[in-house]
């Protein structure tokens, strides 16, 4: 799964590079780079989340896990943690490529390393809500589309906050205001949605 996600992320970056290679000098690539990075993260995470239960789905292993005398929120935490680590590993691969494609030919703000903060906060939220939704959709027909249809609207506030925070530190802007508020919004989203997913997990798996 990790290699598929990394290859997919790399290919999307290559497509971005090709798509933007003919743009004129007035085109501010820095203003768009944050958004493109998050589009890449969201689509790569969808690929990973769709496959995160593939082993458990085979031969009913998820049911086997749900039969053990454990609080099912533990199963959620375990799966969300593994999804988080997979995403983090992909981002570690993607970040240098992102720098190479977008930040070497432009002059990013010296604050650009701060983008690690929204990346970390955003990844926690994506892994949390994504784990709940992928559990719900794993046994459905058309699960790939269904997961995307449920996932993207739900992560939209988080995505919006993370794109704002990333763009500000890369392209410049009100670090004290926009960056701080965006990160706080993302942290708040994480707290609410991850806790909600944790609490609802038992109901979601035994409806």
């Amino acid at each position: 799964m990790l290699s598929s996600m990394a290859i997919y992320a790399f290919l999307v970056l290559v497509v971005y590079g090709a798509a933007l290679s003919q743009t004129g000098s007035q085109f501010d690539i820095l203003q768009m780079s944050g958004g493109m990075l998050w589009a890449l993260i969201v689509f790569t995470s969808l690929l990973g989340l769709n496959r995160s239960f593939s082993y458990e789905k085979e031969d009913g292993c998820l049911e086997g896990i749900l039969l053990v005398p454990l609080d099912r929120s533990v199963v959620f935490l375990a799966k969300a943690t593994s999804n988080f680590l997979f995403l983090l590993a992909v981002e570690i691969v993607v970040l240098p490529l992102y720098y190479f494609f977008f930040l070497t030919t432009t002059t990013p703000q010296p604050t650009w390393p701060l983008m690690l903060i929204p990346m970390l906060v955003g990844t926690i939220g994506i892994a949390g809500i994504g784990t709940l939704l992928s559990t719900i959709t794993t046994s459905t027909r058309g699960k790939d589309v269904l997961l995307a249809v449920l996932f993207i609207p739900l992560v939209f506030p988080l995505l919006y906050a993370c794109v704002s925070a990333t763009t500000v530190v890369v392209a410049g802007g009100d670090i004290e205001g926009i960056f701080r508020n965006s990160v706080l919004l993302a942290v708040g989203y994480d707290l609410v949605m991850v806790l909600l997913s944790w609490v609802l997990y038992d109901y979601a798996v035994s409806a």
Partner: protein
Amino acid sequence: MEAPAVQLDQLSKVFGDRYALKNVSLELPAGSFLSIFGPNGAGKTTLLRILATLARPTSGTVTVAGISLKDDADAAREQIGLISHNSMLYADLNAEQNLQLYARLYGIENAQERVDEMLDAVELSHRRLDTVRTFSRGMTQRLAIARALLHDPQVVLLDEPYSGLDPHAVEIFDSLLEAVRENRTFVMVSHDLRKGFEACSHALVLARGTKVAFAAKEEIDYDAFAALYHETVGMGVA
């Protein structure tokens, strides 16, 4: 007096506007073998999934091994083993690793000893290091029995366990069940009327989510029972 192994009180399960189970009540004594019969869509598997805590009842109460599923599902799961047509085994792990994983999840003390014991019991010790993907259907089902009985459950649920087994594998499966039958309660969903009836001490017929018949085997005349079964099969789904 010993508590019933399974107790259902006005159990209902609704999907949308359709009753999968409707006001089903019964008491099954400990040590019994209940066979559940009925046409497709009668609610058999739904009932088994509720007993296994994999589905939640819409209304009514369920008690397994004296433990209310609503009050303490975790404690009830310690007493429940489920064998279905899905093996619930990871195909890329070997037999031993699969049992070790479940032994750890169930918190079994002396896990390796118990894993060895179960592999011996299902005669798979010689294939312990082979991945499950390389097993035949019969071998996989034997390992699934080992997985289900690893934590020594008091109530064993069987969801069409003969599905996809060849006659030889069925024989092995039956002898394994016989060997572990003592002091356990079994609840089996089966489409095979004769086989299910031979094995059971109690029989339940469901149709359209309702209880059509429930009785101890000695109270049942097989021919009348078979006629009732065929009549309910003709009733179709709920």
